[in-house]
């Protein structure tokens, strides 16, 4: 089983164990999201191994939900009102773009690269805005204990790392050469490990002190 399953599993166990001590509230929302990720990845894995069936439509739906969740996280974590609004209103806009791409432009049997690229670039921009906000903050802030810092770090690595691959996806994805599959496996596995490890850190980095320690 791929390593990311174990990382997600550990994140879920840690989240469940420290549920009452998780803070702020949005860290708790990571748990159902990770659970959904685990279910979908397990199902895709199973489908791919046993039935050799296409999993693209699964990914199309899941990645759309995933992006909406990330935009929502930024909409509550960006301090400037206009950026918060921008992140929030990008959710319905992105849903519309993804819908058009999946059903009218690229089709359900193709990965929605157009909307994926747009969302990746927007997410990287939001990560940049969030980091800038951390840099500009006039109050003493320990970024290492800020869950959103770790989430944004994971997203930044993941989507910048995948940027080149997805730019050329339509050209290389169907090329039947072993190097392509190898490269895909290396990039995908390492970036997924990074992303979910950072999510794990986000869950445990800012636990409320337990009553016994007060």
């Amino acid at each position: 089983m791929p390593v990311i399953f174990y990382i997600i599993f550990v994140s879920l166990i840690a989240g469940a164990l420290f549920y009452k001590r998780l803070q702020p509230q949005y860290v708790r929302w990571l748990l159902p999201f990770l659970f959904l990720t685990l279910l979908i990845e397990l199902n895709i894995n199973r489908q791919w191994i046993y039935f050799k069936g296409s999993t693209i439509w699964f990914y199309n739906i899941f990645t759309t939900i995933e992006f909406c969740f990330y935009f929502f996280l930024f909409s509550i974590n960006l301090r400037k009102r206009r950026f918060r609004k921008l992140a929030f209103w990008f959710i319905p806009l992105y849903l519309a773009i993804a819908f058009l791409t999946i059903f009218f432009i690229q089709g359900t049997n193709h990965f929605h690269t157009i909307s994926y690229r747009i969302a990746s670039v927007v997410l990287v921009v939001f990560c940049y805005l969030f980091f800038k906000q951390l840099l500009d903050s006039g109050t003493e802030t320990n970024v290492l204990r800020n869950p959103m810092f770790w989430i944004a770090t994971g997203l930044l690595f993941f989507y910048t790392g995948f940027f080149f691959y997805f730019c050329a996806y339509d050209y290389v994805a169907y090329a039947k050469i072993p190097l392509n599959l190898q490269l895909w496996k290396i990039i995908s596995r390492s970036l997924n490990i990074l992303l979910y490890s950072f999510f794990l850190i986000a869950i445990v980095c800012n636990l409320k002190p337990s009553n016994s320690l007060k």
Partner: protein
Amino acid sequence: MQSETIKLLEVIAVGTILLVLVAAFMVSFVIAHRKKRNEFIREKKKMETEFEKQILQSRIEMQEYTYSALSKELHDNIGQLLSTSRMLLGLTERNMENPPDTLLTANATIGQAISELRSLSKSLDKEWLEQFSFTDNLQTEISRINAGENVLVELIPDGELPLASGEQIILFRIVQEAIQNAIKHGHPKNMRIELKEDENNYSILISDDGIGFSSNEKGTGMGMTNMKHRTNLLGGSITWNSIPGEGTTVCIYLPIKNKAA
């Protein structure tokens, strides 16, 4: 065609590594810059606190200087004038066969005024106060106030205050101001000053049965602000709890770590 795809894959691989490195650099920059900025903020806060402390210290020194000058003026000038007046009244009394009651009363009143003036003058004189402990000075101050018979102040001491002499004077001035504020604004009949020592704090509770005030009336008067700043200077804290019609309690907490070496 295949070689072109391989070249493209190589470009993707290199590009991905480069972008991940840029992301890593960005994240490390945020962490490092934030760390530096936090240090700067801490340092700035420390300097501001230090600066405020110095300003407060010099303000206190200035006030003590004024109090001492006032004390000397009261003792050497007004005190002398009153003493001379009393001496003259005494002489007049002796020269008269049957001095009138008003003259005797005037003599006694001036005597009382001299005595109160002396004790007021002492309570203002830092050098005088430094000779005694906080509790002794407070007891003298209470006796002086009780002599006025307008308000009855009771002191419940608990050991000696673990503070250096200079700090004891600052604390004495805070308590003095709290008492004066209570008398001036609360018009109490009774006051109680309780000194308590526990494991972590030395606390002074000044309670009265005056008219009290509501939180809206609390305001941000200079008196209260000064008392707060002075208490902060001693590393402690001060709070006011008041119920309109029932009185006020001023609580001063000083951490025991302030114990004089």
